[in-house]
């Protein structure tokens, strides 16, 4: 019963940590819009955490520039299990308009397993909310596997 409670809670209280790896700030604004009164992600328990140690879902935006690559990988390693990685926008998926640039080391898939990828340049807050909610459900499954 205690395990069941913990896996239910994992779905109900996912804390976000946002990493900007060279994003143009467009996706970042849309992510913040999710937390504002209009969309109110907190009603599902989403909360922005101050440090990767407290995070459940890591939200990555931007096309992984060579400057931010090492920091991204190190930050991802600091997140305790169970964790989910959500990429926001087209940049972490493909590099978007920056594809082929000498300073881009994407896509994100090269460095970490991406659980949910929200496409768009920029995705609407509704799409981001949908993606985050799916990530919360994946989190629950991961917690169940961890318990066994």
């Amino acid at each position, binding site marked *: 019963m205690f395990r069941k409670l913990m896996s239910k809670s994992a779905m109900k*209280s996912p804390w976000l940590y946002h990493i900007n790896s060279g994003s143009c700030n467009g996706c970042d604004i849309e992510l913040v819009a999710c937390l504002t009164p209009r969309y109110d992600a907190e009603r599902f328990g989403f909360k922005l955490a*101050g440090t990767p140690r407290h995070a459940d879902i890591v939200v990555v935006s931007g096309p992984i520039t060579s400057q931010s690559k090492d920091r991204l990988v190190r930050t991802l390693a600091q997140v305790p299990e169970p964790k989910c990685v959500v990429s926001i926008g087209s940049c972490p998926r493909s590099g978007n308009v920056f594809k082929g640039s000498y300073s881009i080391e994407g896509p994100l898939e090269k460095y970490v397993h991406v659980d949910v990828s929200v496409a768009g340049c920029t995705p609407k807050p509704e799409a981001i909310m949908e993606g985050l909610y799916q990530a919360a459900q994946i989190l629950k499954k991961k917690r169940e596997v961890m318990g066994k």
Partner: protein
Amino acid sequence: MPETAQYILWTAFYILIFPGALFTSVVGLFLAGVDRKVIAHMQRRIGPPIRQPMYDFFKLLGKETIIPHAANKFVFLAAPVIGFVSLAIIMLFIPIFGFTAVSGSADLIVILYLITIGGVALIVGGSASGSPYAGIGVSREMVTMMSYELPFVLVLLAVARKVGGSTLVFSMEQISQWQVENGHMLFQWSMIPAAIAFLLIIPAEVGMQPFDVAEAETEICEGPLIEYSGAPLAVFKLNTAMKMIIMTGLFTSLFLGQFRTGYYWADALLFVAICTVLTILCMTTVHAVTARLKIEHLFKFYWTIVTGLALSSLILVWLGL
């Protein structure tokens, strides 16, 4: 010896269940949930359900606990537990109107020390984690504690003198009894500044928004809590929630102690209701309308305005008013 056995059983019940660990945690998490829900409504949001802090707690229990390489492992893990134990024990000394679990002659002093241990646990845990951000958070937490401890002691002295007449009475039971005979402490006009000072101390003690300089998450990444994850973090979050019920409960029994229903369960319900109202009044509302202060402004605020209020009350009481 059946009497000894009974005494041990009752003490265990007090510490573990009714006014102790379980009651304090559940009501504390409930108050934290009410706080989040009400602030969401103030910002025209729907907000998380009231049981959200419980979800947070159980989720954190189910997370991996990472101990950083630079940390002192034993102190790092022991600090939250020490804080939890001291906070769970405080509630035994606070009378829930007619009901007192433990009463002695110097309850107020014990409460003062145990509340300090709750804050010190955060400082010790933060210093043990070996992160520079935690270092900044720890120094700020220490300044915050120094700021509110002075007016806090003055308020308690004023209450003790008011009840004692010509001496100081630190027994919570006598303070409670005095209020049954003479009416709420809050309605003694010489005690009104002290009551306001106490209400202003509550958010700093709990670490709520305008006074959360030590745990500023947007600035120094949650300060002392930066390296914590999993179960120790859950206990620290629980400690914060427990401080909410303890501080509002202390205000209730010091200043609004006249209520008596005659039934212990009704007393407890009324106690929780008053604590909820106080939480909304002095934490949620203040949180919703203010931004975080700087540490020097916090220090100045407490050592001038709040200390002034508490001191004026103490002087009035000392003059026999």
